[in-house]
């Protein structure tokens, strides 16, 4: 059973503003029944741009209902400009927090809000932006990148918790790892501390030892660190990896992705004969 805050439970049991706004002029619909949650947000915005009325309809679990209820409460009386600044984290905070696996419920709220605002502004319902990454839940790279940026996500699991992407067949996990690395790289200059060579090598060794070698060993393989030259990580394959046809894939999709995630986003892994 999920650990919900009292405020989530209270909003779930007594949802505020459930229903329809008949003369709504800002309507946002997101999600689908196949995905397991959907939200229709209906707003009435007056001439001065203030939100007079906010109601919702939702298909979803307790935290989806509570998030929708919270969002409508937050929106009432606000100007559109103020509303635009409400983030998914604000919705979660209003409820005293959501279980991490349920953060996507707050993201759904934020998406419905964006969609309602563009509807009000007369913009066509936003065409799906970007490329679908997660086929199971129809999540695009743009949506994933946005969630990574806004919530400072670092792992595939976190991306799944916030966007659902990767929660089905798991085929897109590599693609999500790449997106995380890409966003990290973009944001890197400001945030990233400089690593000395010795620090870098130490971190690579630690990551190999803790995160990488145990998985390879499970499949009868192994890997040794040979050298680190700048951002080039030279490794030698051992055991099953040395003879495995798929080892090249393992090197880039797993070893390199992991090292980029844990140590430095610009690392490249190369295999050297040993």
């Amino acid at each position, binding site marked *: 059973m999920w650990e919900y805050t009292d405020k989530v439970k209270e909003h779930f049991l007594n949802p505020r503003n*459930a229903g329809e706004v008949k003369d709504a002029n800002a309507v946002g619909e997101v999600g689908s*029944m196949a995905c*397991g949650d*959907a939200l229709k947000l209906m707003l009435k915005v007056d001439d001065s741009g203030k939100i007079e009325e906010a109601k919702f*309809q*939702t298909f979803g*679990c307790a935290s*989806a209902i509570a998030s929708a209820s919270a969002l409508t409460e937050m929106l009432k009386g606000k100007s559109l400009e103020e509303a635009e600044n409400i983030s998914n984290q604000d919705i979660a905070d209003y409820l005293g927090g959501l279980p991490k696996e349920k953060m996507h419920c707050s993201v759904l709220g934020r998406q419905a809000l964006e969609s309602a605002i563009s509807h009000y502004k007369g913009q066509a319902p936003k065409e799906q932006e970007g490329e679908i990454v997660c086929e199971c839940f129809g999540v695009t790279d743009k949506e994933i990148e946005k969630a990574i940026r806004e919530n400072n996500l670092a792992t595939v699991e976190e991306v799944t918790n916030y966007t659902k992407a990767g929660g089905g067949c798991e085929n897109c996990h590599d693609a999500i790892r790449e997106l995380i690395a890409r966003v990290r790289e973009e944001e890197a200059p400001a945030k990233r501390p400089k690593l000395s060579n010795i620090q870098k090598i130490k971190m690579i060794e630690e990551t190999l030892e803790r995160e990488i070698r145990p998985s390879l060993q499970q499949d009868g393989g192994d890997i040794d660190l040979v050298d680190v030259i700048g951002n080039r990580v030279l490794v030698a394959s051992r055991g099953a990896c040395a003879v495995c046809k798929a080892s090249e894939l393992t090197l880039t999709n797993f070893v390199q992705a992991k090292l980029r995630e844990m140590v430095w986003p610009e690392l490249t892994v190369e295999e050297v004969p040993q």
Partner: protein
Amino acid sequence: MKTIYMDNNATTRIAPEVLETMLPYLKDLYGNPSSAYSFGGQVGREIRNAREQVAALLGASVEEIVFTSCGSESDNTAILSALQTAKDKTHIVTTRVEHPAVKVLCNELTKRGCRITEIPVDREGRLDMDRYKESLTPDTAIASIMWANNETGVIFPVEEAAKLARNRGILFHTDAVQAVGKIPIDLQESAIDMLSISGHKLHAPKGVGVLYVRKGTKFAPFLIGGHQEGGRRGGTENTAGIIGLGRACELALDRMEEENTRVKALRDRLEKELLSRVTNSRVNGGGAERLPNTTNISFEFVEGEAILLLMDEFGICASSGSACTSGSLQPSHVLRAMGVPFTMAHGSVRLSLSVYNTDEEVEAVIDKVPSIIEKLRAFSPFWKPEAQACASGT
């Protein structure tokens, strides 16, 4: 608020008779059954008695009963033993709707070079026996087919499946965790080689299970250690748990008829009333042969976790196959395997009864659930009461 417990496929209450039988072994009679002195020996005698009680429920003999720590351990032991004793064989036949104790193990085994065939089910959850027959090959080490499904209660023809396996010299295991105690089982007359039981599903405590291993079956232990269980499972016996499970099996034999008459009637009434009071609802697996205690009902256009938490407000305990309750983002693998549409799968609720349920409890559920569904549908964007006649055809 009184608890109305209708989640007996998840776990059951310990029968008072069982608890009473166990208590001395948690207090004064703490001896180790392997010890030489009579303080331990008397516990050993009770364990032998428990073994007889379990064997009686299954139509087995005492040497065929191996006590374990849970149903999952029994399942793991059976499958891994089959692979280890038939070293050249690497193929496993199972179903798409197994419990994770079998399903996840098989997924793991693919990484170790095993080939897994998962037999599909039809829309009512019935096993595709033609596909099953075709998939048994000379390379097959074991077929593991559950006796009854935990989510829908649908019963598989395991006796027939076991015969087909035996004719081809293939070991047959069944996860009978949900079936034991609810439907009659006679292993004397069957071709089943191994069978798993979980204590806490039949009013014994958690932490005890059984693996039945037919005499003459090649066997490799899973838990390696002492000589306990005839060398087939190391580790000091969970004495109180085993003695409790023995008593629970004795009770189950006595209550089998009640389970299939009174409990079944309660389930049938619950099902009939809920279907007639809530439009756009259906029973998953309703067209198949099912356990007498289980019903899995889908309420279209609402989400399962929300239903469960509103039921919880009335003290009603049940479970759901919705994504939010399955611990993943997709609805239950069982309902997906059956091709239950998403509109239905997310709103599924499983009610599973036991001999401890009463008429009053069933009436209370019949009274409360329709208003819960109505409340949630009132703000579901997909619920258009006037258009439902068309939509329900999907």
